[in-house]
Structures are given as C-alpha cells and as structure tokens.
C-alpha cells in the first residue's frame, strides 16, 4: 500500500535540473512520487520505490540524511 502522490518537477526547456530518486537513485524526468516518512518528505521515481523504501532501504540503511 502506498501513500504518496505524484508531483511535477519544475523544469523548463531553458533550465536544466537534475533530481535523483532518494530511494533507488534513478534520475527523475518530469514528475516525482512524493511520500512521507514521519515529518520527512521523500522524493521517489515511482510508487514501487515507496514500498522498497519501507520494506528494504530504511530497515537496512536507515532514513536518508
């Protein structure tokens, strides 16, 4: 079960911006999957990364700094 929401990444054709998924590391093209871990907001590339975060990444490595 995921709790996040899709949000656009503000980028225009004349403004380069590079946003990585906090969970898997992939660069995100145009919209991010934002979800909350307590009062921390995590940027992910897709809902599956929210699941990966809670059932593997956080239990194994802790929350991202």
């Amino acid at each position: 079960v995921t709790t996040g929401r899709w949000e656009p990444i503000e980028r225009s054709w004349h403004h380069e911006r590079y946003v990585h998924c906090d969970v898997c590391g992939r660069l995100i093209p145009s919209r991010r999957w934002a979800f909350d871990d307590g009062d921390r907001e995590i940027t992910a590339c897709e809902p599956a990364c929210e699941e990966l975060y809670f059932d593997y990444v956080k239990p194994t490595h802790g929350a991202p700094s």
Partner: protein
Amino acid sequence: VKLELDNVGLHVLHNALANIAAEMALVMMRTSYSTIFNEGLDFTTVLLDPDGQLVAEKNYTPSMMGAIPNTVRWTLEELGRDFFAPGDVVVHNDPYRGNCHLPEHMMVKPVFRDGVLLGFAGAIGHIAEVGGKAPGSFASDATEVYQEGLRLPPVKLIEGGKYNEHVWRIVLANHRTPRNTWGDFHAMIGALNVGERRLLALTDRYDAATVLEGAQRLIAHSEQRMRAAIAALPDGAYEATTEVEDDGVGREPFGVRARVVIRGDEVIVDYTGSSPQVRGPMNCTYVVAASSAYNAVFCVTDPLSDIPRNSGCYRPVRIVAPAGSVVNVRHPGPSVGGNTDLQPKLIDLLLRALAGATPGLVAAASGGSSSNLLFGGVHPETGEYYSNYHFDGMGAGATALADGNDAETTRHSNCRNTPVEIFEHRYPLQTLEYRLVAGSGGAGRHRGGLATQRTLRVTAPELTISALFDRCKIAPAGLFGGEPGARSALLVRRRGEDEFRPFDDVFSLASPTKFTNVVLREGDELRYRTPGGAGFGPPEERDQAAVRDDLEEGYVT
C-alpha cells in the same frame, strides 16, 4: 490471418518480433561506416510498445540494457507522447537523462497505423567520435561531462520524414569525423525504417490489436518466468566488495560494495557503501549500475537466454544505487569510462556475491577492462581526419564447468574483435603481432581465458592516442581457490629505442593506462596487452590431461 494468443501463437509472435529486431541489426551492421558498428557490433536494436516498454530486441551489447528503457522513458516523460509524429526520428545521448554514457546514441522512431501509435522502433549504438577534448571521445582525464563530447537531450533528427537540418549541423560541426557520423546515423535510421516497415507488415498480417495484446502477454510471460527462476535461488543477502585501481585523474584506488538480496521471486541489487563519485571518468550512471545488475542476475537465472528478453525480465530486479557515488554519478561528473571499465567489474562483483547463492552458475573475474584505445589524426593517404575507438578481447573468467574463453570482449560488451586487415586498411598503424598471451589465464580447476596482445607501428607522421583501461595494477580475482588473471599493460617504444616502456614513464603521466592526447610519431611502436581471466577452483584439482593440453598448445609456459 487469425493469431490465437495461446502458447503457440505467442511463440510465433515472439519470433516474428525478435526477427524484426534482428533484421534491423543486420541493416546497421551492413550499412554503417565505423568499424565499431560493422566489425565490433557495438549496438542493439529493439521494438518498444507505446509506453516505451521493451517488447523485443537484438541485443549485441548487454551494456545497453539499462539505457534503452530509461532513455525512452525519459523522452516520453519530458516531451510527452504527443511530441511524436509520423516520420520522426528522435536522438538522445544525455547521461543525465537516462543514458549510459555520452558516446551511446539512442534513436527511436514512432510507428503509427491509421493515426494510432503502435510503438517504437529503436536503435542504440556507440558513435565512435562525438567531440570533446580527445579524439575518440574518451578523455581519461575528464573531470566533467562537458569535456566528454556533445550532449544531446532528446531532439528530432528527422521531422515528418525530413532532415531537421539545424540539429544535423550542430552535430556534424562538433564531431571530429562528421562523415562517419553521417554514415552511422543513417545506418541507425535505416534500421528504424526497416523496423517500422516490418512492424506495419506484421500488423497487416495479424491485426494491430492482437499484436499489441500479444506483446503485453509476452512481457507478462517473461516476468513470470524470471520470477520463477529467481524463486528457485536460495533466499539470503550475499555481499562482495572490489577495488578499482584509479580514476584516470588521481592515483588512488576506490572501492565498490554490492549486496544482493534474494527474497522470494525478486532480487535487490544494492550498491550502498560504494565509494563517493570520483573526479575522473570512471563513474557509472544509474543505468550502467542497472545494466550490470541485469547482466549478473540473468547469468544465473537464465544462462541459456531461454526467456524472451523484454521488459518483463527486468521487473523483478530492483536497484539501489546511491546518487553521488561511483555507481551513480551526479551532474556534472564524467562517466565515459564507467560504462566500459567499471561496468565489467560490477558484473564480476555481483557474480562473486551470487557465488554464495549459486556457486555452480557464476564465474571468476574476467579481465574486466574494455581496454579502450582511441586514436586519430590526418591520414597520410587521404589527407582526411580519421578517428577510431578500439577495444579488444581479453581473458574471460573460468566457471564451474569450463575454462574461460580466450580473446573475448567484456561481459557487458559482447562485441567482436577487429581483424588486422580492417585495422591496417583504415588506419595508419601496421600490425607487427596479434596473439594470445601464454600464461595470462589464472590457474585453477578451470583456467582463466587468455589475454591478447597487439604490437602496432605508427606509419603516419604523427598520431594522437588516448587510452582508458585498467587491471594494470589490480589483477582479476580468482574464485573458490582459483588464481588471478594476468594484469594488463600498455607500453611504447619510441623510434630508435630498444625497449618498450610504460606510457607514464615515457610521457610523465598520472596513470600508465589512462591518459589523453599523447602524440606518437612515425616509427613509434605501441604494445597493447589486455588482462587475462581468473581461475575457478584450486589449481591442484585441474585434470592432468588438461594440463598437458595447455602445455602442448602453448596456453601456459
């Protein structure tokens, strides 16, 4: 013709789609200008569904597995599906938009039928010269992507069937060998045109809805089979580390860590704990870390390549590659060598980790370096500028079943070696020797494959060379008691001198095998020796008849 989407019908459809991709690949091979395409086969051709999901491929080069879905996904998300019109061809090579490294160019052509998007024909290939600070576009001392060549975000190369001349002019003005780019780009476009025609013919024969539905069922079938293959492996977390000798800018080694978690029917490949990204171009992009993971996982789950290769195969494999590390470079870090020389080590590293789960299906370390040699200059016979990107076979790692292959290119590249005749015909380098290196395979129950050595004499007044390869200091590691493979070497003998010496000695360089724009003169000789493969199992367990054969055949000294 009515195609039932039962097991037989899906098999027929899969073969039809895979053969389209194979025919596209033949077009590229036979019509391209550069040896890297027509001899090396450093490219892959694909068919994709309207969402950019891989449906079928002719995968000559596994290193592109990660880049294909990510470049197409990026294009679709950044520009939108409405961006595409009939007759368009979009090109894209940006490592910071889902590509593996700058020389790789992904082209896609939408295929429409009655105004409806059926999918895309795609081709990805290594363009031999894309500008930047070094001929051949492998600057070993690059410290940012801007030094590595011309970056193209997804742009239309062909628009509605007509040249987008503005884009072509920018590209051709920035590549050192525009004639080759012209020819290789057209080889790719020709492949896309064939893919488009064949896909339309397929939907003439069967209806489009059946083909699209069948493609989705094939993807689901592959995912199901890949999950079953993963589920057959023992659950657990398997770890390994490796060290890479330098990044081309500094002299210090850096480390990579991998944790492979098998849980049920999925695999997590986690690179957390790897070194922060380095200054030189040995960093990987995320998609290279992903390609390495797919490569290693497919080696142990589908060693005979029996599962139809499409997006379904990738779904059970999850990647964790922290941004800002050597396995996932942040902008504007350089990454050209990460694709060619870190990637094979990542695959070896993952196979070493997987040895804990499935020891009979892994391999000892391969030579693990593409041994990139780049050279260019003005050809004395034509007066025209030439440039070449060359790689060569090395020793493959031994397995539980067999000795490693000799003179094989890296696991991720799967490319062909360039024949001497082609080399001498096109470039001002005379081949004095090209041979296997006796004793370069690591000893073991199964012996590592042998490295190769070429000695080349410069026949032009001057020739500029760059190199990016390693395993010069750190040898490929054996597995289960096998011994390491031999290290690589790149040596030079200046005209009139007696001995070959390392390049860093002769030219005061930071690295003996990673350097940029060294000028050689007529009569200078270059000795290019790739690394050997490592051994598998204790050498004392080697069959005595195999030892005798090795001696008689000159494999060992």
